[in-house]
């Protein structure tokens, strides 16, 4: 299994980019997706941002196949969301498919409405924009760069370390999940061949229980390793690496801001259209 969100060591312009530029890109992404844009006329707003994100990924030279797990998860989620919205959307009248009549409040949930499909698609587009943008920071920024960036942003030392530790624990959880699943398969517990209902009913206890117990143990060892290396010393540690802003950082910052401004301009112009 490919472990998502793991730092990929490369020497590309995106990897060399100052982490503060990438953090700003993430914040602007959040602004884009949290603005309610549910009508189809706004589709270009997240699309512009999505196109820029895809270009950034291409520049980072990270293989699409690393996202297999994420793609599978998103595909399932999107199909579910679009269908649910298609059936349950309250303000839709254009019936695309009619299965049966079952009224729930003002809605006939036995039909799929065009307006619901559009609403669901717009929702998925926003989720996709977030899903494409957010991993760029952690997959192209080493944890020492992240620590420096958080320190520059005056994040508390403990909070910074919690974020970095959580990232390293994500990898650990995926690795342990694999080990535990293998160990249980060796006892004739073949989770891969169970149907989804059986999986939900009985598959996860034999996997989640050892995982949680092992994570407690690892967290304990991790605490020992940290504290015996003076992590609890009051005050800020000595700064070992400082990363100045380069011309590349300024150029990329300007480009990101221009794309953001374009997206906002589109939002306003499209909002004025009937």
């Amino acid at each position, binding site marked *: 299994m*490919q472990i998502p969100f793991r*730092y*990929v*060591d490369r020497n590309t312009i995106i990897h060399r980019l100052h982490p503060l530029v990438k953090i700003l890109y993430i914040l602007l992404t959040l602004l884009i997706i949290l603005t309610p844009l549910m009508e189809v006329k706004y589709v270009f707003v997240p699309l512009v941002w999505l196109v820029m994100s895809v270009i950034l990924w291409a520049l980072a030279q990270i*293989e699409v196949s*690393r996202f297999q797990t994420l793609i599978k998860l998103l595909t399932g989620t999107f199909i579910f969301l679009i269908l649910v919205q298609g059936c349950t959307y309250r303000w839709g009248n254009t019936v695309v498919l009619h299965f049966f009549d079952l009224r729930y409040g003002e809605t006939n949930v036995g039909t799929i409405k065009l307006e619901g499909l559009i609403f669901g698609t717009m929702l998925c587009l926003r989720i996709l924009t977030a899903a494409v943008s957010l991993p760029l920071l952690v997959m192209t920024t*080493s*944890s*020492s760069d992240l620590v420096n960036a958080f320190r520059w942003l005056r994040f508390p030392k403990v909070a910074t370390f919690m974020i*970095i*530790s959580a990232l*390293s624990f994500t990898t650990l959880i995926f690795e*342990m999940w694999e*080990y*535990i699943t*293998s*160990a*249980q*398969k*060796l*006892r*004739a*517990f*073949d989770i*891969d*061949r169970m149907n989804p209902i059986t999986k939900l009913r009985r598959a996860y*206890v*034999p996997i989640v*229980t*050892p995982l949680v*117990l*092992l994570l407690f*143990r*690892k967290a*304990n*060892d*991790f*605490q*020992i*390793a*940290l*504290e*015996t*290396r*003076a*992590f*609890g*010393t009051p*005050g*800020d*540690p*000595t*700064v*070992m*690496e400082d990363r100045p802003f380069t011309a590349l950082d300024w150029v990329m910052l300007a480009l990101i801001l221009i794309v953001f401004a374009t997206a906002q301009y589109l939002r306003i112009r499209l909002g004025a259209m009937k």
Partner: protein
Amino acid sequence: MNPLEIDLEHVTFTYEDGVEALTDLNLRVRPGEFIVVLGANGAGKSTLCFLLGGIVPHIYGGRRVGKLSVAGHDPWDEPLYVVAQYCGVLLQDPEVQLFNPSVFTEMAFGPANLKIERSEIIRRIEASIALLHLEGLEKRNPRDLSGGQKQRVALGAVLTMQPRVLVLDEPTSQLDPVGRAEVVEAIHRLKSTGEITIIMTTHETDDILDLADQVVVLDEGKIVLSGTPAQVFSQPEVLRAAGVKVPDALDILIQVNALGDQPVQVTDEQIERMDGRYVGNYTTELIRKGHLEVTRSPETPCNGSANQNPAMLEAVNVTYQYPGYPPVVALQEINLAIRAGELVGIVGQNGSGKSTLVKCFVGLLRPTRGEVRVGGKNISGTPVGRMARQVGLVLQNPDYQLFTVSSRDEILFGLHNIGIEGEEAEQKVNSALDWVGLQDEIETFPFRMSFGDRRKLAVAATVALDPQVLILDEPTTAQDHRGRYQLAEIGRRFRDEGGRTIVMITHDMDLIARYAERLIVMWNGRIILDKPTDEAFAQREVLARTFLRPPVAADVAACLRDLGVSENIITPEGLLSVLRKGKS
């Protein structure tokens, strides 16, 4: 002022759950001394390390009685970041100690927390890197390094804090032979500086003979033996009773002395020179002086027999490639047949393909090319769940599988998965627990059991499925001497009494020599040696290429070759069987 660097007076420590881990401990260590603490799993070694490093009571709570002083401080009274400045701790598992993105930042982490000046931190890092031979790795991610390199980085990260006392808690127990040798060499260099007091716990007694100034043996929290290595290792019976392995070379020397009516007591000088060659030359001398005689040398191999049974496990042109960036070829064109009833050992360094190969045999991994057959049938379409009834694989860490509230439920889980219920299942539970000697633990919560017993329970859970083949993956990792042999013994009984096929993956050459009839040596995804064990150990050049060493008994036998002793001898018992008391 206390001239002792470590001073324990009548120290008793009890954990919060009431378990008394250390009882009335007295230990006095002078500055610059190297102390080795030995003992079986659960003897109290790690608790002692935690006590010295302040981990108890700051992380694990408990109650202490008695006086404790480390570098003139009582770690009990000070926060851990203060204790860390005079007492550094290196843990068993390098993985949990490395959390920074580069070797450089990993080593800078401790002193940076202590607000040491940047230039001074860099000076300390450079000194540690030179001492530990880590040059060129400064920018590498520690997680991408080999086991030995990781543990040396973790050691460097402690050394840059310049503690006066260094506590090493089984620093080599999770490493392969190459990694172990690298770390032991680094510890030798560290000791030779004479600037630091070191206390180290270990099961690997062979590594510490020429390191230790004092040896302390713990058993159930009490010191049962202490003194110089010569004093301690001259009492093999006490060591064995405490579950401590007598170093192989020393064990043979003591037995040879006893056989030739020589004083059993070994000297410090002998301890410093102790290895197979020394024991071989010493035995030669005893034979020349007439204290010993060579009785016979077996013409047939001591170990191994021709097996004509049909093949149980077969790999035909098997290649396996792990996906990744870049992909890693773990097995290359493997052709192998393991016959029913064989007890086969597989050795090789980490990454040589041993675990990948056995995972192919149980269907956890499907070969990229080639074919795997079990009992003559291609298993490419057989699900892992069904394979579990034919081939049982016990993984290194039992904690990846245990999840129920009792040993009974743990075994029943697998039985229910293959459709065995009711009375039949209960019988199989009892029988499996009998096999591993845990019949009295049927209702015990597995996580309350010792690591060794948890491993035995994992074996029982596999044995209960009644597989034709039992594979033990690294049964020796993090196990004490006693636990290693118990698991190997279970494997052998399963073969002898149950007529099954056993495959053991291990780094312990002595264990292989005693139990395996056939030895497979892997290197870089290929099988480079596959012979009866005694013949394989005679292939010294091939073994050397893979950084493996034959057991000490084989080294001694090689020295005695000119006196008529067969080179095929690989166990102490085999060696002693061709010697007898001389006439003088």
